[in-house]
Structure formats: structure tokens, C-alpha cells
């Protein structure tokens, strides 16, 4: 077992941002069933470099994320690899909830009335954490929605799968570069449940083993290897 470095619980409706350096495992666990944790990734040393959904999907010929896949930046590099996953499907095409959607779907709540139990939106959570890190509105891009499954039928209709995520489901990322992670624990916009479905998620950071030549993510596709090579080339220039 890798040594645990840090652990945090992201409560329902919660948010978090912080830098995790290269070579760490970041493990997320759904503490109740039906979790959805929205995730954005940036390069803390060059904030214009960010997670790119289309580059990630088309390079790996996939419309979903699971073990073996890597999360690519818009500069052809890898922020993080998905090295373990008990679910087989995480979403990256359905975005985050806006304030408007949150109010219309779950009923308008206010801080004045509910205090800290008011329903948070992904839009506001991300805005706060982006601004905190020197970013803003223009830096929003498609998110990764850990624990959610949205599949498309032949006509292109998007279908959210209820009961996809049981309590205890885990997914583990391995950072391949220093990464600014920005998280919002808010509902998937396509979740049909009409009561606010956010549940707590735990986040653990552990030390990662070095990437070996037989690494599953490295060998998953030739595109992944070339993205790893781009990442190592960048590291060689900026580190040490």
C-alpha cells in the first residue's frame, strides 16, 4: 500500500482547489451512492494550459473515461492517468450545473433561509475556485464528472444512468505533471432526480510508484505513449 499523504472529505455541494505535484495518486471515493464530482485541471506553472475534453476523447477513441485512459491538456501532454476504477465509466461530456438549472430543478434555496445547507451550483463553485487561482470566466472548459455515466444512443440522445455509482466506488488518478485541481461536488446536469442528489466524496493523496515501461496507461494506446513522451520532454526542459 502506498503511503497516505493527505485526506479530505468534500461534502455535498462542496468545492476545493489545490496543486498536486507530479507522481502522486489522487483517490476519490463515493461515501454514499449516486456521487458526481466535477473536476477541472490546469498547469499551475502555465495557467493557459488546461484539460481538453476533445483532445482527450479523440486521441483515445472514446466518449467515456476509465482505467487506462489519460486526461490530456490542450498542449498534447498528460495531466493525470486513470490507473484504477471500480465503475468502468466516468463522464466528460455533460458539464456542470448552473445556478439557473439548480434553482429550476431543485427549488430556489438561499443562504439567508438555509444557511450553509443551501444548494450550491457547479457554476458558482468553479467561479470562486478559478478566481481564487487567478483564473476566471473565460477559463471554463468541459469538466470531468467522476462517478457519472452518460451514454449516447444511435440518434445522439444523451442518457444519464441512475444507480451507476454505488457507495464505496473509487477512482484513482496518478499525476503525470504538477496539476492545479479544481473540484465541485455538485450534481450532474443530466441527473433526472428532482431532489438535490449531491453526496460526500473523500479525496486521498498518496505517493505513486514510478511509471514503468509496462505501465497500463502508457501502453493503452500508441497515442497515450506519444502524449507521455510529450510530457517527459516538457518535464526535462522545466525541471532540475
Amino acid at each position, binding site marked *: 500500500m502506498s503511503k497516505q499523504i493527505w485526506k479530505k472529505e468534500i461534502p455535498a455541494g462542496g468545492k476545493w482547489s489545490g496543486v498536486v505535484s507530479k507522481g502522486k495518486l489522487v483517490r476519490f471515493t463515493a461515501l454514499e451512492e449516486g456521487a458526481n464530482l466535477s473536476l477541472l485541471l490546469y498547469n499551475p506553472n502555465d495557467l*493557459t494550459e488546461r484539460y*481538453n*475534453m*476533445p*483532445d482527450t*476523447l*479523440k*486521441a483515445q*477513441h*472514446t*466518449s*467515456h473515461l476509465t482505467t487506462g485512459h489519460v486526461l*490530456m491538456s*490542450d*498542449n*498534447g*501532454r498528460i495531466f493525470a492517468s486513470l490507473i484504477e476504477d471500480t465503475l468502468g*465509466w466516468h463522464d466528460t*461530456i*455533460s*458539464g456542470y450545473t*448552473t445556478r*439557473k*438549472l439548480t434553482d429550476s430543478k431543485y427549488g430556489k434555496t438561499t443562504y439567508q433561509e438555509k444557511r450553509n445547507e443551501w444548494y450550491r451550483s457547479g457554476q458558482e463553485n468553479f467561479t470562486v475556485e478559478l478566481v481564487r487561482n487567478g483564473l*476566471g*470566466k*473565460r*477559463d*471554463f*472548459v*468541459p*469538466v470531468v464528472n467522476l462517478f457519472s455515466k452518460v*451514454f*449516447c*444512443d*444511435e*440518434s*445522439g*440522445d*444523451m442518457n444519464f444512468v441512475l444507480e451507476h455509482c454505488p457507495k464505496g466506488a473509487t477512482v484513482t488518478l496518478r499525476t503525470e505533471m504538477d496539476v492545479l485541481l479544481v473540484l465541485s461536488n455538485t450534481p450532474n*446536469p*443530466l441527473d433526472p432526480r428532482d431532489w438535490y442528489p449531491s453526496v460526500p466524496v473523500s479525496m486521498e493523496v498518496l505517493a505513486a510508484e514510478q511509471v514503468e515501461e509496462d505501465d497500463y496507461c502508457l501502453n493503452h494506446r500508441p*497515442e497515450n505513449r*506519444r*502524449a507521455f*513522451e*510529450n510530457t517527459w520532454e516538457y518535464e526535462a526542459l522545466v525541471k532540475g
Partner: protein
Amino acid sequence: MAVFNRVESERKIEDAIYDEVILAGDGWMRELEPGQVLRIVDLEGNQAADTLFFDADNPDDHYSAVATITGQTNIYLSTGSVLRAESGKELLTIVADTCGRHDTLGGACSAQSNTVRYSHDTLPMHNCRDTFMLQMAKFDGKYEKRDLAPNINFFMNVPVTPDGGLMFADGVSAPGRYVEMKSISKTAALISNCPQLNNPCNAYNPTPVRVLIWEE
């Protein structure tokens, strides 16, 4: 079964206030006034017109592929699709489309993504994101690299399968097919006429597109 929704326009070429050809691999950026209608014509067929939009009055609010597709709970764009900004604001509506289906998950090619998708020696090849940046630079800092969110690929076919696959297939367009959209407010349109030489979606042969604009 793939659904193609083909709708013709009644607008006449001679009534257009603007009519230009964007050559293969070239770029184009222009602000549309509220009510203006933009038509993009795939002159020779199977070309990809990589297109981004911005709220020209609030340029930090870019087109959002995800807000657009979740707004209609369908990943393909065609007549009736409302093209939304990141804030959720409605930027344009597609009002005619003789191709029938367009992609907004595949993004734009870049030098860096080409090295990943094809080979490291493709790095010097001309690509859409270079074209986007060159066009944005003409607006004196109003738009910058951070504004490059995932775009629309008009005329491109990127089928997604129920089991979670995604592929780039041969184009579904043909010579003369077009898509037409009406601007709801003041909207900047940015087009890279894709120069990609490594992908079958344009039959490895980039060709010109034509852009026309009508007043409402």
C-alpha cells in the same frame, strides 16, 4: 440508426450583404449583428469548418459545446439547435441545414494534438488552433488563448456509440451543402477552414468553404 435532419433555406444569394470564400487552411473572424444570418457552404464536400463563437459584448463568455448539447440532451447539432455560451446565454440558433448533422465533441486540431494522434513529426503541420490564434490576435487583445474552448466542426461526422466509443468517420456532407444560423445578440464568429492532412474526415484533401451573411 443515425438521424439526419435536412432543412433548406429560403434566403437568396443575391440578397446577401456579405459573400466570401475561405480557402482551405485559412481563417476568418467577424462580429455578427443581432438578427444577422450566417451561412457556411461546404463547396466541394466533406470539409470541416472548425467554428467558435463569442458573446461580442462580453468576449470572456465563449461558446460552450457542453452547455449546447446538454441544453438539447443530444450531442449532434442541426436545425433548431441553440448554440449557447458558457454562461448559458443563447448566442445563435441554427435555422437551416442541408447536411443534417454536425459535430461539437471532436474539437480542433493543434500542432500538439497532431503529435499525439498521428506522430511526433507532424508538429510543424498547419492546424486549426494556429489559425484560431492568428485570427484572434487581430482584435487587439480582446480575445486570447484562454478563450479557446472546444468548438463546432460543421460538416464533420464524429459518431459516438452507446458503449462509449468515438470515431472519426468519413464526412456526411457533399458539395454545396450548407448550414445557416441566426445571431441572437452581437456574436463574434471565428472559423478555421481545417487544414488537416492526416484525417479521413475530409478525404485527406482540405477544400474551400464559402461564408454569406444576410440581414434579418
